[in-house]
Structure formats: structure tokens, C-alpha cells
């Protein structure tokens, strides 16, 4: 028996224990949040520190002589005939330009001509060729153009490649980096913000410096449009019916349980379904954002239905009763009163569902969207239909790049993660803001 203290000013043992328990609980809570915050900070620092380099890119200014006898043997300046000179024909011109510039600037080196040429990105050749084919009148003149440097040189200016690592690396050499440093001192090599990272398509394993997210961002955008246009109306219609009109019986209970179950189904299952139904049976294009969007719609529908039903439920019954009381029909009460009041909740649920779909890779693996795609997908084309041209998606691009051998792609992958996180943050912030702005409490 503990003795009973009559005073309120003196705390007895029992109160002390309860207070201690409360303090402990607060401490646990703080600890949990601390661990979560620490994990987030570690994740973000690793991703940002390795990925920030992807947003800067090193360029070299070349003065390329474009001799007529090499590029336009017929002298007609006809792009169709000039296109017969492939990138293999242009590569020596770029190399010669750099070698001549080195000589003019008084930079001497033991490096062979081949290795000097390798300091220029392989993408640069295609850039120059396309530029010349678009402007045939340039043939015979000297073209001054900024082109990408090779990935190791680029890595040197971002601190990824050092003289020590270059000495061991078969793809570059300390001599090459010294030349690059001297060119940078003279302003011929510059590092600047890399818009190409957000606009350019993917590049093959030999040119990490050229790889960008353009196709992936377009693909993700198209898929999100498909998901929005299909999942939002379907999900809202289904929830309105289930919540407002459906009789409460075994069948509607069964449907409800199934929707909850669907929300928990692993996303890869939807990919298998998509391959079987949309591609093999429906005959839709593989690798197309349309199929990707359809698969993600299936995945997002349960999320939207569940959040929409919650939003509809939170509208007080008195609103419905009042509408019905002044003679509105059931449909009028729902569409004129209940739905507008539930809209903020529906929007939030939809945006969160979309954000989930944006970060999804697994189902896309099976429908052929985990691929090397360089052509920008058009939203509509005669042959492929709406959203039918092959594309990838942002998370897929991360997955692809982490698998590549060249260390330059690790930087790109982290850069892609940053981009994806920014998109997700924007969507989630939009959801929060919309809720704050329009939410009504009763």
C-alpha cells in the first residue's frame, strides 16, 4: 500500500511514475523521428553529392575546318548526298581541329593523335554532322562550335576523376588531363550548367557525357496524362456509385474488400497483366507510354477509389439531407453539393496516386519500357497512334544507368534521382497546398 499524500503540490510515487512514462514515450517518439530524419539526410547527401555533377557539363570550343572534298564531293550542297558521309568520316575533322588548336596555343604533348582525339566526346561528331547537314552552306568554311568533352575529362573538372585514378585508367591518362587543364586555363574548355541533362535522350555506354533525361521525362509525362485521364474519372465514378448509390449488401462488401486488396497487390503483377492483356491480347505497342499508362492506371485506381470514398464520407450527411429536403434529386445532391465539397480530398488522393505511379519501375519492366530509347516519342503519330511511340520513364532511366559499366553513369543515375525527387516533391507539395486552400471543416 503506498501512502496517500493529501497535498496536490507534492507528487506521489504513482504520479511520478506516470510522468516518467510520459517523458520516456516522448523520448521514443523523438528518437524515431531522429532516426528517420538521419536516414533521410544520409540518403539525400549521398544522392546529391554524387548526382549534382550531372547538372554541370564540360564543353570544348573547337574551330573545325570543313573541307569540301571530304564532306561534299559533288559540290551540290545537297543534304541528301552529303548524308553519305557518316560520323566515321567526320571524326578525323574534329580530331584534326583539336590537334591544330593545341599547336596554335603552344601546348606540346607526347600524347598520340588518337588519344588527343579521344578527349572529344563521340557525341560531338554527331552534333557537328547534324549541324553541317542542317546548314550545308558551312562546307568549305571553318565552324566554331562548343562540343562535349569525353566523360573522363568532364569527370576531372567535377572532381570525379583524379590524376591518380587516371594513371590506372585505360580510357584516359594524366597527360590528357593536363592538356585539358591547360585548355581550361586558356578558356577553351568550359564547364557550365547542363540543360542537355534534362532535354537530351539517353546515350550508349560509350558516351555517358551525352546521356540525358529528355525521353524519360516525356515518357513519364505521357504516362501521367494517361493515368490522370483514365484513373481519375473511373475512380471517382466508381467511388461515387459505391459510396452514394450502391445498396449495402454482400456484393458491395465483396467489391469493397477486393478494392482494398488490389491496393496491396505488388505492382509487378499489374505488369504481367499488362503484357498479357494490352500487348498480347489487345495488340497495343510494347514499350509505349499508352500501355505503361494503362498498367499504372490499374495500379493507381484502388488508391484513388479509397481516398475518394474517404473524402465523400467526410462530407456531413446534413448537406445531402438539406439538398434532398429542398427537392434536389439524388444525382443533383451528389454532383451539386457533395462532390464539390469532397473535391480537395479527391485531388489530394489523385496527386498522391500519381506520384506513386511516377516512381514505379517494376510493371514497366515487363511491357518493354526498360529499354534504350533515343528517339523522342511524339504524343501522336499516324503509325503508332496516341502515345504509341516507344519511351522510357524516369525511374526506369535510373535503373538503366545504375547498370552501366562506365562510372560516368553513376553520376547520371544520381542526377536522375534528384530530378525524380524534385518532381515528386512538387506533386506532394501541390497536394498539401490544394488541401490547405480548399479544405473545409465542419
Amino acid at each position, binding site marked *: 500500500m503506498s501512502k496517500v499524500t493529501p497535498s496536490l503540490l507534492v507528487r506521489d510515487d504513482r504520479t511520478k511514475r506516470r510522468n516518467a512514462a510520459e517523458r520516456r514515450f516522448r523520448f521514443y517518439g523523438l528518437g524515431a523521428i531522429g532516426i528517420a530524419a538521419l536516414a533521410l539526410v544520409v540518403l539525400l547527401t549521398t544522392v546529391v553529392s554524387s548526382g549534382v555533377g550531372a547538372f554541370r557539363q564540360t564543353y570544348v570550343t573547337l574551330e573545325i575546318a570543313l573541307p569540301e572534298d571530304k564532306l561534299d564531293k559533288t559540290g551540290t550542297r545537297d543534304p541528301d548526298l552529303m*548524308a553519305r558521309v*557518316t*560520323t*566515321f568520316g567526320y571524326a578525323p575533322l574534329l580530331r584534326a581541329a583539336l590537334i591544330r588548336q593545341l599547336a596554335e596555343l603552344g601546348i606540346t604533348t607526347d600524347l598520340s593523335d588518337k588519344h588527343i582525339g579521344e578527349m572529344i566526346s*563521340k557525341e560531338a561528331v*554527331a552534333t557537328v*554532322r*547534324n549541324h553541317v547537314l542542317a546548314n550545308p552552306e558551312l562546307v568549305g568554311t571553318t565552324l566554331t562550335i562548343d562540343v562535349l568533352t569525353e566523360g573522363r575529362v568532364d569527370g576531372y573538372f567535377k572532381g570525379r576523376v583524379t590524376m591518380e*585514378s*587516371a594513371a*590506372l*585508367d*585505360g*580510357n584516359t591518362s594524366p597527360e590528357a588531363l593536363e592538356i585539358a587543364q591547360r585548355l581550361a586555363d586558356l578558356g577553351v574548355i568550359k564547364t557550365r550548367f547542363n540543360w542537355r541533362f534534362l532535354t537530351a535522350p539517353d*546515350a*550508349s*555506354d*560509350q*558516351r555517358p557525357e551525352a546521356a540525358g533525361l529528355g525521353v524519360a521525362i516525356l515518357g513519364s509525362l505521357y504516362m501521367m496524362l*494517361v493515368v490522370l*485521364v*483514365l484513373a*481519375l*474519372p473511373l475512380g471517382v465514378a466508381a467511388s461515387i456509385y459505391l459510396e452514394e448509390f450502391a445498396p449495402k449488401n454482400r456484393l458491395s462488401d465483396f467489391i469493397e474488400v477486393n478494392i482494398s486488396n488490389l491496393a496491396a497487390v505488388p505492382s509487378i503483377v499489374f505488369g504481367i497483366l499488362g503484357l498479357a492483356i494490352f*500487348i*498480347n491480347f*489487345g*495488340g*497495343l*505497342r*510494347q*514499350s509505349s507510354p*499508352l500501355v505503361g499508362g494503362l498498367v499504372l492506371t490499374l495500379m493507381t485506381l484502388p488508391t484513388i477509389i479509397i481516398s475518394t470514398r474517404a473524402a465523400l464520407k467526410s462530407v456531413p450527411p446534413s448537406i445531402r439531407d438539406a439538398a434532398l429536403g429542398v427537392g434536389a434529386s439524388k444525382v443533383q445532391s451528389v*454532383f451539386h453539393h457533395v462532390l464539390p465539397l469532397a473535391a480537395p480530398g479527391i485531388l489530394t488522393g489523385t496527386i498522391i496516386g500519381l506520384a506513386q505511379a511516377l516512381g514505379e519501375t517494376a510493371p514497366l*519492366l515487363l511491357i*518493354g519500357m*526498360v*529499354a*534504350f*530509347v*533515343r*528517339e523522342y516519342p511524339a504524343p*501522336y503519330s*499516324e*503509325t*503508332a*497512334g*496516341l502515345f*504509341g511511340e*516507344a519511351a522510357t520513364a524516369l525511374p526506369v532511366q535510373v535503373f*538503366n544507368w*545504375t*547498370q*552501366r*559499366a*562506365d*562510372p560516368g553513369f*553513376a553520376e547520371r543515375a544520381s542526377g536522375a534521382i534528384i530530378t525524380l525527387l524534385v518532381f515528386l516533391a512538387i506533386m506532394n507539395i501541390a497536394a498539401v497546398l490544394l488541401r490547405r486552400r480548399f479544405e473545409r471543416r465542419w
Partner: protein
Amino acid sequence: MSLVKFTTSSLLLATVSATAAVARENVQVAGSSTVLPYAAIVAEAFGENFDFPTPVVESGGSSAGLKRFCEGVGENTVDIANASRAIKNSEIATCAENGVTDIVEVRIGYDGIVFASDIDGNTFEFTPADWYLALAAELPVDGAMAANANTNWTAVNAKLPDQPIQAFIPGTKHGTREVFEEKVLLQGCEESGALDAILAINGGDEDAAESSCMTVRTDGLSVDVDGDYTETLARIEADTNGIGVFGLSFYENNSDKLQVATMSDVVPTTESISTGDYPVSRPLYFYIKAAHLGEIPGLQEFADFFVSDEIAGPDGPLAEYGLVSDPKLASTQDAVANRTLLDGM
């Protein structure tokens, strides 16, 4: 309601446009992740230099790619399957069942498989027997099979450095694993005389003996890596005692972090592999659906371009990336140009 109208019409539009799709314009490739980088390099150069769109190259593994390839004929099936091994008879049969009866086999070159360890660690000179003795689940000891007791490379071979055995080998889903088992473990089993010893123990059952040779220990000293070479590299960076199995091209792109081991005193290079001195290599292939040639624009041109001298030759970009070019490339070029079909169809 305008919202309702908008959504119904967009739904209709989506379905109509989906069904209205006609012939595909780009070449669609799927298959081996080993061949993927080469196919991507070729696809990129093809898109740059030809009027056709850049082919779409999917990864996913040789078996998955061939499965997709064999799904049938038509524009929503792939045109080309990349494979890091030859097509199996069972796959040819599946293909034939689904109407894919005409296949052109194209060998693009060879891929070397190398053993590499942390750049700051010990240097290794292996023989296949070392790997067998280090990784086999059971070894023949005094006329009976006993669990492999080797835990250090010196115990395997006194010439090897004093370092605990920790191997990162490709998982069973990889085509590389098969080559590793046949060209390293089985070879080592024979060379070390263990195969004869096992045959003496089990009474001459060759299949059982060979499968015993290729059974890898599961006590944690050998780890199956199901991911890509990047995962193997990350594991070696985390555990510097680790020795990993890589493709030659991967090693050449990461030579500032890895040092390569010799096999039977031969350093793996594109030259030593093409001459056959370096023993662990395998051919890489792609398979073309002949029914799509002429139907899918650019398919024939892409295949021709892939095996052309300027791409797949010894001075081409593929060799530069680490592919060992095929000395018989000219006959491959003829086969592609003449659409020579695979036998046994």
C-alpha cells in the same frame, strides 16, 4: 457536365487511336544484358547515320529476350533477340510452335570473362583448378566426397597469396554463370584430377560427376550476384578480400578500381581472347526474325550495319568497348546479307 464529356471523349479517343495503330517504324530489340551495351552503341550510330529511327533496345537477359522473340510473328513482337549464348533446341521448338520458323543467327564476336579484385589488394595468378578447389561444394578426399574445407587461397594453391576466399560469381540466371561453370569449374575439376577421383568414387557416372564438379559451395565463401557487374563491383569495394567475375568490357571501364587476374598465365585482353590463348570466353549472338525482314523498315540495314567492318571489326567502336571481334566476320556478313536461316528448323 463538361468534365464527364471531356473524359468520355478522351477515353474514346484513347481506345480508337490504340486500335488504329499500323506498321511499326522502329526496330525492336530485346535480350541479354551483356549484349545490351554493344547493341546500344550500334543503335545509336545507326540512328545518327541512317534515315531510320534509332532502334529500341530492351534488356532483361538472354532467356527472357528469346522468350519474347519466340512469342510469334507480328509488329507487336520483337524483331531481334540478343543472347550471350546460342539458342537452345527447346527455344527453337517454342519459336516454331508460335510460327517463328525462320531465324537468322548472327555471331557478333566474343566476350571475355575475367576475374578481378580490388586494385590495392593482392595480385592473383589463377588456374581453373584453383577456382574448382576453392569453390566446389564437395571435394574428393581419400576416396570419399567431403565438404570443401578450403577457406584461404594459400590452402588451394601455395603460390596464391594469403587471403581468405571470398568470391562474387554471377547468379544462375546469368548466361555468364554457365560459361564460368563449364570453362572454369569443370575445366579445373578435370585438370586437378578431381574428375577421375569422383568417377572412381561414384562408380563411373559421368553426368553426376560433372554436375558435382560444377556445384558451388553455399557456406558464404562464394556469393551469387543476381544483379549486374556494378553490384559485384560495389561488393568488392565493400569487402576488399573479394574476387569478382566480370565481363572484359566492364573491367576495362573500371580499371582504376580493379586489377585483373591472369588465368593459366594469360592476361585477358581482346588480343589474347581472339587468339584463343585466354581460355574463358564465349560467343555473343543476336537472332533476327526473318519474317520481319522487309516488313519492319530498317531491320535489314540495322543487321548489316551491326556486323559491318566499321562497327564490329577490330578497329570499330565495339572492339574499343571490349568486344573481341570475330575473325570470321566476313562470313557472318554474308549470312546476314543472304538471310541464311538457322538449321534444324
